């Protein structure tokens, strides 16, 4: 039997008239990595802030290892590790001092120093452990930020977009770390708006938009929602949003949206739709710079479900 670590039911949060989270619910089992995938402003950070006990809920519940989480529930908080989106480390302290400080707050007592050394090894900062973190590189700070979250061996580790603004090399190192944590049996809640990260790391994914989870499942289950549809990524000149109505009206096109200088098109049959799409774009006065046809992925799923691109 799989141990359920987190059970969220009907989470709600509003700021005045703005509904930030509207009935979010999901579960995470031990050893499972759950991805909360959605664009900026979809409600990911608000959801995990309630789950981490940073924000009071307006409604619903979040239970970690049997303990309801509130902003005051110290027992539930002890089971959670948080890696905030922004760096949360003290620049005037060394890496080791940062770890020791938080280890003491978690009352780790005996074995504290051994655990600090262990974490330094995991995040590959043993050699620089006694340097003040203000002289660390961006990647090193990011790794320490993660190390602080997993220091007390939490049952649930929450990572809020940990790769935002990170160089590719550090990003890959972070993803490898997260993969290892999942394999080690930790329950991981990972929020991102990078589809590739969700596909690589997550056993199950909840797609969140406008405060609601609009689809949930494994990657295979989610992609199946799109059916046999293909995805066309068309780079154009000018503003591609001007041609969205004409492209959407084409017979073989199911949905179309503009993202930056490109059009994201979900087509029933790429080989039939492609000439029509190119013709429609050029007829509207734009040039086609490149076309990329791909199998359905989470981006296609999001486009299919919401009619907009993940990074709009």
């Amino acid at each position, binding site marked *: 039997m799989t141990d359920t670590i987190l059970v969220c039911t009907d989470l709600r949060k509003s700021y005045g008239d703005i509904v930030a989270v509207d009935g979010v619910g999901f579960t995470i089992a031990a050893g499972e990595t759950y991805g909360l995938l959605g664009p900026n402003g979809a409600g990911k950070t608000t959801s995990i802030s309630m789950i*981490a006990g940073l924000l009071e809920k307006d409604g619903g519940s979040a239970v970690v290892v049997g303990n309801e989480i509130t902003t005051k529930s*110290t027992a539930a908080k002890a089971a959670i590790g948080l890696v905030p989106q922004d760096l*949360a480390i003290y620049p005037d302290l060394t890496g080791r001092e940062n770890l020791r400080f938080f280890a*003491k707050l978690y*009352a780790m007592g005996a074995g504290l120093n051994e655990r600090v050394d262990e974490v330094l090894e995991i995040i590959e900062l043993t050699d620089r452990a006694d340097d003040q973190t203000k002289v660390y590189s961006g990647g090193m700070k990011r790794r320490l930020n993660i190390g*602080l979250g997993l220091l007390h061996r939490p049952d649930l580790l929450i990572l809020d977009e940990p790769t935002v603004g990170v160089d590719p090399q550090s990003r890959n190192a972070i993803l490898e770390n997260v993969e290892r944590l999942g394999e080690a049996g930790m329950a991981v809640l990972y929020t991102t708006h990078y589809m590739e990260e969700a596909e690589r790391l997550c056993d199950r994914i909840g797609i969140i938009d406008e405060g609601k989870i609009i689809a949930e499942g494994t990657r295979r289950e989610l992609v199946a929602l799109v059916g046999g549809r293909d995805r066309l990524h068309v780079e154009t000149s000018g503003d591609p949003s001007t041609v969205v109505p004409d492209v959407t009206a084409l017979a073989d096109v199911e949905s179309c949206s503009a993202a930056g200088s490109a059009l994201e098109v979900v087509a029933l049959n790429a080989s039939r739709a492609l000439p029509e799409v190119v013709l429609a774009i050029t007829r509207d006065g734009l040039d086609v710079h490149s076309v990329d046809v791909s199998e359905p992925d989470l981006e296609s799923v999001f486009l299919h479900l919401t009619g907009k691109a993940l990074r709009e």
Partner: protein
Amino acid sequence: MHAALTIAAKDLKERLRDRSAIVLAIVVPLGLAFIMNLTLGPITDQAFSTDVAVADADGGPVSEAFSGMLSEVEEAGFITVSEAADEAAARAMIDADEVSTAYLVPEGFSDAVGMSRDAEITVVANPDQAIGAQVGRAMAEGFAGEVNAVRLSVATALALGAENPGALAASAAAEPSPIVLASGQTEGRGFDFATFYATGIAVFFLFFTVQFGVLSIIDERETGTMPRLLVAPISKQSILVGKLAASFLMGVASTVVLWIATTLLMGADWGSSIGVLILILAGVAAAMGLTAAIATFTTTAEQAGAITAFIVVVFGVLGGVFFPVTRVSGAFVVVSRFAPHFWLMDGFQRLSAGEGIPDILPALGAILLFAVVLGGIGLVRARDLVKY
């Protein structure tokens, strides 16, 4: 409690490592106290002295007694006496602003006194040296009083049958001068300037030193570490107490260091050690209350720092940390009571003058009132700062 102590220790470690805190808390105030004492101390610490001139056209025993009285005062260091050849020369010295007072003793003055006729010394006052002139007039009045007393004593003795009026007069005149000037202190406040600048600067900078604790709460929010503290299994109160404890320790430690350093290096005399410690603890509490109340009405650490600096400087001036407010009068004196700095300085001045703990109770009460009222506002509002 363990969490609060852990947070306090972390904050203190950060402050010690961030040299700017040490510089602001100890190095700058100590340096300023030294500089102010060296540059302003000798000027403001000077004893009062004035120049007088005597034009003695009499040369008799009574006018010589008058000159003798002036010489005694001169020896005490309060006046410098110059002899003028005649009345015109004396008036010329007044016009040239060389003296504050000129005494014109007319010819036959001693005889007139001896014969119990009207006798007078003309006192010419320099309007540009009003205080000196007042002192000069007071000395002449004192001498006249003495002469009159002698005449009265002699006349009374003769009326009662004494036979040797000359011996009586000589004996009465030999009595000590009624004018006695001595270096004194106002209302028992013996406050030397080394001590004044030491305590003034310590009080002034105390309010900057303790603001670190409250500002660090805002800092934790700005730098993103507050969420990590809030998800730790500790209460919000622990975070707040830890921050305030670090602030309190910083304030007490820096003021105690300034107390010891100025005592050893500048010769400052802060007075009763227990009284000083009590005032420091109360002062730190009031300073924390004030800075907390201010900081909680701001949104960024920079904003809080700027507003605190402005208010602390205004309170510092009002409270007399740069100059003794006992030397000014009017509305300023009333307004100054609304600055905690005033009461701290009052307490330190009393202790320095040798007064005891009972004498500083009014000041202590006022300081604690500031601490309770401002601290209450700050504490209630600072709890709102400890949030995501």
